[in-house]
């Protein structure tokens, strides 16, 4: 049986750790709230943008755009993986990386060259460990992610796609479904899917479905040239905000589990300590009684 002193020391350590994890849990909760509100605040823009694209598509008829062109064969593609810059968030990074690697291997089996672009230090570290090359490592997207930070990334992806250097672009990130559920997904970003617009559109009441005769300035086609890249940029931005909300949720859950586990550990250590102390007292008493008996 361990010495009572050693147990006390250990209990103290666990207590300190619990203090830290509890604080981190509280911080994650506050950050989660902020990130969640921010993620919600980005929704109107996406919604209105989708509505604009729909209005334009109605006016321009068949929408054709270089960003929507689906190439027959995909020879090279970009895979952007969004991981976190910091650790201690449970299975968050593992989840994304596992999902992204599965996709990566699938693409490689199909003879597609994949340029992996990694956002976040954790993913970059993992790929270093795997000795897999990274085309680019992005660590400047902060918390909260700013639109100006995400914009160049989206522009670079679109430029390569339009120059036919790549034939597709994917984003792997942790999709935020609810506070209790996040799912790692690989989302195709380019070519821009047309169906996605309608899928994201809220169900409009039938009364407002009347087609409006819009006045366009400049011509619908020229407007589309600006609108579609804007859609791609917003979509990517939303991936980043979503990923951040998921990250904070994951950290919150992980830190809650750590705090709880520390609590359990303290309880069992206290029990062990009490038992050890009692044993010691009993032994000392036996010694004294034994000694007294020997003298008598």
């Amino acid at each position, binding site marked *: 049986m361990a010495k009572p002193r050693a147990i006390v020391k250990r209990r103290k350590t666990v207590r300190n750790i619990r203090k830290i994890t509890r604080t981190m849990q509280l911080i994650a909760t506050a950050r989660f709230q902020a990130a969640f509100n921010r993620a919600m605040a980005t929704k109107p823009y996406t919604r209105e943008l989708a509505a604009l694209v729909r209005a334009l598509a109605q006016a321009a008829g068949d929408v054709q755009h270089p960003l929507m062109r689906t190439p027959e064969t995909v020879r090279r593609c970009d895979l952007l993986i969004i991981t976190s810059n910091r650790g201690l968030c449970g299975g968050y990074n593992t989840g994304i990386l596992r999902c992204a690697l599965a996709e990566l291997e699938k693409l490689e089996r199909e003879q597609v060259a994949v340029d992996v672009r990694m956002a976040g230090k954790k993913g970059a570290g993992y790929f270093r460990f795997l000795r897999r090359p990274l085309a680019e490592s992005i660590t400047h997207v902060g918390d909260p992610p700013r639109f100006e930070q995400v914009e160049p990334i989206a522009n670079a992806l679109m430029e390569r796609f339009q120059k036919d250097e790549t034939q597709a672009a994917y984003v792997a990130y942790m999709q935020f479904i609810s506070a209790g559920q996040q799912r790692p997904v690989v989302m195709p970003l380019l070519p821009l899917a047309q169906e996605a617009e309608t899928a994201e559109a809220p169900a409009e009441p039938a009364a407002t479905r009347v087609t409006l005769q819009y*006045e366009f300035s400049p011509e619908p086609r020229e407007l589309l040239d600006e609108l579609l890249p804007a859609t791609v940029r917003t979509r990517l931005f939303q991936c980043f905000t979503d990923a951040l909300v998921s990250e904070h949720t994951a950290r919150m859950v992980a830190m809650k589990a750590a705090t709880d586990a520390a609590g359990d550990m303290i309880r069992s250590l206290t029990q062990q300590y009490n038992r050890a102390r009692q044993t010691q007292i009993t032994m000392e008493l036996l010694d004294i009684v034994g000694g007294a008996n020997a003298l008598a």
Partner: protein
Amino acid sequence: MPKIETFECNVITPERTVLQCQARFVAFPAHDGEMGILPNRAPLVCRLGVGLLRIDAETEKHVLLIEGGFAQMARNRLTILAEQASRAGDIDAGEAARALADARQMQATDDASTQLKARAIQRARARQRFAAHAT
């Protein structure tokens, strides 16, 4: 007294909804010049340029600097989708001046980069002007 007609006006950036109010008149920088909107205007979709967005709301006036985006007017509801919308206090004059200097230094070798440079200069100038105007 006749009731003053108003329309709903939303200013939205990718990050958040900047402004939501009932407006009597709105003037925004379109790609080819300034455009004014009064209540019950016919449906319109328009690309935005760089410049000042002025909104006469019911009780107050708002001025924002807009850098590109789109405006949509439909069913008496104006939606301004801007990639950037800043209020006067958000812009630092010194920073704007530096941005202008940087923009002037940009290499312009072909059509695309010339356009990019012109745009950067235009943006920086507008920011500078706005910052000076505010103080």
